Each structure stands twice: as structure tokens, then as C-alpha cells.
């Protein structure tokens, strides 16, 4: 385990050097306080101070549309394929690192999803610490994701005139070696890092009326809550909340036939439990017919079901669902409403 230092003046060179060899993506400003991960060629394009991007970096781990199978009917041939890019992802916040860990769990659960697992190893992950709270929507502290918790190759923390970088993997180390822009961290840097973390513990507050460990219990008794009826009236089922969520992974499987009517492919694409047809079966029954029931399902998939299966919350606290909701349904307000109700 080691820490190295990159001077801020060298940051641009670092990204430029990386981009000269590999595809590098990072958070880029899109205006109106929106950001998205995009390919970058230089450090100048990157917004170091950004709030969670429109889509989380999950789009690189689990592409929106991903080929699984190629077939040729005339040959009776089916082949499982993986299409991938080698990508260096720069600037993943701790909440999104947690999101990736959630996906890792789901896809390595048996039976394993080999597409996900192989692709994941083609991606190099560079984390970036948030020194301050993103905005009023974030709730990373609630779920304990405001401090780094592994899941990266390198992790950057901004100090007054440099970045202190935690080197977590061999691959990360190779990258540091290659660029030759890093120096070993000195005590002063480690002190500064400690200072940053100390401050964070002060400013990052729970912001909901319930503690981390109580949360799942809250949901033990929340199924029949009136809160879902309120959400039923407000939700417009636009599907934004699930599409932007770093730990949502539902998908659809879609076939495509080429015009020769012999060759084609089978791929998977993101799907959303908020969409009306998602749980509808051929006999016409829809097991989560109301928007309220679908919202409840979403919350339960963050705070209850995964706790039973994977012993962790699947909400990373990134705040995206609240930020993007057309109806401004707020995750924190919903939790607080449940707490109030159960008082």
C-alpha cells in the first residue's frame, strides 16, 4: 500500500499522456450543473469539482446495449461474444465506486455473468475523493460511502497544490510508473490528507432521521406504508431514477436480425422496473401495476432485498435519483416520511 503525489500543474500532462495511449474518460461539464463521463484528450476537459454525472460509470461496466450472442441461422451457429474497449476511467467518486461493487456482487453471484466479469477487468478505475458534500441531494454519509472503501486501482484526493494518490493495485502502480509524473508522498501530504478526512467527518452529516444500521429495519415494516400511496400520486414513471442509479442493473434481452434473415445478434439493454410493461405477463397480469408499487419496489431493492442477499445496501447515496426525478421525489424525504410514520 502506498501513496504518491501528482502536482496539480502536472495533472493536464498526466491525462494527456494517458490519453495518448489509451481511451480515457472523465467527468465533463454539460452545463446547467450537469456532468457526464466522456472521452477526454486532456486534463482541461475534466471537471475535478463535479457532482454525480447524469449516468453513473456503470455505462462502461454494463453498456446500455451489449451484444451477448452472434448467430448465423444458415450455419446453425450460435457464438457467445464480448465486445469491449479498454478504458481508463478517471474521477469516480466514492458513491460510484460503491455502485460498481454492488454490480460486482450481482454479476459474480452464481451463475456468473461472464460478460460483466471479463469486461470489468478491461477497465482501469481511478477514484476521486469529494472533499465537500455534492449538494443537498447526496446521501453518501447515510449509507457510509463518503470515504473510500476500495474498489479502485488508483484513488485521487485533492490537496492544496497537489493530488495525493492511493495506489491500490499492481495495474495502478504500472500506470504511475509509466507516466513518470508522480513522486512519493511525504509526511506533510499524509497530514494534509488526514486533515481532509477529518473535515469530511465534520461536514458530511446523516441528514436523515435514522442511522445506518437501522435503515433496513425501517423497511421491514414499510411495505404497507402510506408513503407509497403518496409516491403513487406523484411519480410519472419516466424511469429516470433507475436509469441513473449506479446500482440498478435490470435488463431486457433483445434480438436483432440482419436483412439477410440469417445472421444477427442477441443483446441486452438497460431496462427499468419503473416502466409499465416491466413485470407484465402474457395473461395480462401486471404484478406491480401501480406507480406506487413500482417505486416501493425500487426502494426495497436498495434497502431491503439486497441486504438479505448480499448483506449491503444497494443505495450508494449518490443522490442521482432525487436530482433527476421529474416529480422531485426525494430519497431522503421518503426515508424521513417512513421514519415519521413509524414513530
Amino acid at each position, binding site marked *: 500500500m502506498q501513496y504518491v503525489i501528482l502536482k496539480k500543474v502536472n495533472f493536464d500532462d498526466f491525462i494527456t499522456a494517458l490519453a495518448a495511449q489509451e481511451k480515457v474518460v472523465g467527468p465533463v461539464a454539460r452545463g446547467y450543473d450537469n456532468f457526464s463521463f466522456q472521452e477526454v484528450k486532456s486534463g482541461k476537459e475534466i471537471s475535478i469539482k463535479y457532482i454525480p454525472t447524469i*449516468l453513473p460509470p456503470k455505462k462502461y461496466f454494463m453498456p446500455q446495449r451489449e451484444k451477448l450472442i452472434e448467430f448465423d441461422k444458415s450455419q446453425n451457429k450460435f457464438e457467445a461474444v464480448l465486445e469491449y474497449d479498454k478504458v481508463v476511467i478517471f474521477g469516480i467518486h466514492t458513491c460510484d465506486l460503491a455502485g460498481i461493487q454492488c454490480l460486482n456482487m450481482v454479476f459474480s453471484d452464481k451463475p456468473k455473468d461472464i460478460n460483466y466479469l471479463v469486461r470489468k477487468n478491461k477497465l482501469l478505475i481511478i477514484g476521486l475523493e469529494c472533499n465537500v458534500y455534492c449538494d443537498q441531494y447526496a446521501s453518501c454519509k447515510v449509507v457510509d460511502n463518503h470515504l473510500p472503501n476500495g474498489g479502485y486501482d488508483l484513488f485521487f484526493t485533492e490537496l492544496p497544490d497537489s493530488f495525493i494518490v492511493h495506489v491500490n493495485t499492481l495495474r495502478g502502480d504500472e500506470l504511475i510508473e509509466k507516466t513518470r509524473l508522480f513522486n512519493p508522498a511525504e509526511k506533510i501530504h499524509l497530514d494534509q490528507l488526514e486533515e481532509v478526512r477529518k473535515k469530511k467527518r465534520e461536514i458530511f452529516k446523516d441528514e436523515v432521521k435514522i442511522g445506518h444500521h437501522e435503515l433496513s429495519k425501517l423497511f421491514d415494516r414499510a411495505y404497507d406504508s402510506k408513503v407509497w400511496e403518496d409516491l403513487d400520486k406523484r411519480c410519472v414513471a419516466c424511469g429516470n431514477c433507475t436509469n441513473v442509479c449506479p446500482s440498478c442493473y435490470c435488463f431486457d434481452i433483445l434480438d436483432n436480425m440482419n436483412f439477410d*434473415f440469417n445472421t444477427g445478434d442477441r443483446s441486452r439493454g438497460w431496462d427499468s422496473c419503473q416502466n409499465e410493461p416491466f413485470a407484465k405477463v402474457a395473461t395480462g397480469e401486471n404484478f406491480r401495476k401501480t406507480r406506487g408499487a413500482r417505486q416501493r419496489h425500487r426502494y426495497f431493492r436498495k434497502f431491503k432485498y439486497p441486504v438479505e442477499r448480499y448483506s449491503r445496501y444497494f443505495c450508494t447515496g449518490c443522490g442521482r435519483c432525487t436530482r433527476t426525478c*421529474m416529480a422531485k421525489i426525494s430519497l431522503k424525504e421518503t426515508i424521513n416520511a417512513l421514519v415519521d410514520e413509524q414513530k
Partner: protein
Amino acid sequence: MSKPKVAFFDFACCEGCQLQMANFGEVLLDILNLVDIVTFREVMSEKSEIYDIAIIEGSITTAHDTERIKNIRAKAKVVIAYGSCATIGGINGMKNKFDLEEIKKYVYRDGAKQIETLPTRAVHQVVKVDYFINCCPVYPPEILKVLKCVIAGIPYAVPDYAVCVECKLNENVCMYDKGITCLGPVTKAGCNSWCINNGNICYGCRGMVTNPAKNGQLDILARHKIPLDWITNKLDMYNKPRELDEQK
């Protein structure tokens, strides 16, 4: 398997959806490998009364056209409603907001007497439709998708969720964040949020989702201080004939 015979017919429309076929470029030749186009007045002088698949562009607005579409339905094995005018009434439906006599007089003055017109209807409001290709104009990737389904003889379901879904996947900055109202939340997806990708708003040309959230929408409007009639007016742009369904 012999190639299915395809006929194009146009009713009240701008013929832009037919033009989308020509806009395929050389891919059009691939399509022509799979089907025989036997009638396509806009680009062909050949005609045939025998066809398997009728592709209908335009809405039904006259008694004559009502008869014509019924005839086509009787002859065709498969009827495809093609474009907003045909699938939901589309832009022609704005007319239904007005008194028909009044609007006739406004546009044709003295000539109004000679003009015959009925409230605008979508094709499925007159005859049974087997496939819907929504959008104004039709979205080329969706045309191909549906044509493949037609040829394979399997159904095609228009996505019944909001344009927002695709819009988010395209990582557009939401129009509401920009302070502008957009019909994305109530409009059926399938166009890959075409308009928003190009910086404009969604006008709802694919028709409303089956079960739009009325309450939720009103909330949103209130929060953005948007008068209701702005949105209803916008919805009327393509979706006015939907009322004829609701009355049924």
C-alpha cells in the same frame, strides 16, 4: 417463399414518411430484395391492386378516404399505419380543435362550400391496424425493425414507456432543468429521444403512453409554474384525435 407485395398509400399527410424510404440510401435496395413494391404513387407509375402489405401514410379526413381505407383493408393481409398522421392522427388532428365549418371558411373563404372534411382520425380509428410505426416523420431504425417483424410474421410492440428513458440514456440535460417544458414524460419512446438530442423539446409525435400519470404531471407543471393550457395545447399538436378513442 415468394416476396411479399407491398403497396404504399397516402392519405392526409405531408408524404415525408414515404420520403424516409428514399432516405435509406442504398439500404433501400436491400429492402427491395426482400419485398416487391407494387404500388408507390409518389415514386412509381406502376400500380397493382394485388398486394399483401399495405403501408398507410396519413390520417383519414374525408368520407371518400374512409371508403378508400376500408377497401385497402379488405385487400391487404397486413396493414401498417406509418407515421404520426396514420398512427395517432398527428398534426392534422389540430383541426379537431376548431369548428369544422369555421375553419373551412377561414382557409378557403368562398371556396369553402366545395370542401368536404371530417374530424381527423387515425387509421386504427377506422379499420384494424396490424403494425404501428409511430413518429413524425418515421424513425428509420424503427422502420427497419418493424419491416423485419412484418416479413418474419411476428408482432411488434411500440415501447410503452416514456421518451425520458431514452433521453436519459443519451445523457441529455433534461429540458426541465433548462426551464423548458417537454412532452417526453408522457410520450411513448422508440425515437431514441430524437428531438431532445438535437436541443429541442419533445412534441409528443409518437403519441401518449397508455397510462400517463395525470396527477404527477400536474404536480410537475405546478412546480415549474407552467400554465396547464400550455401543455394541453402542446399535446393537442399531435394527440388531439386520441379523444375520439376516449369517447368510445
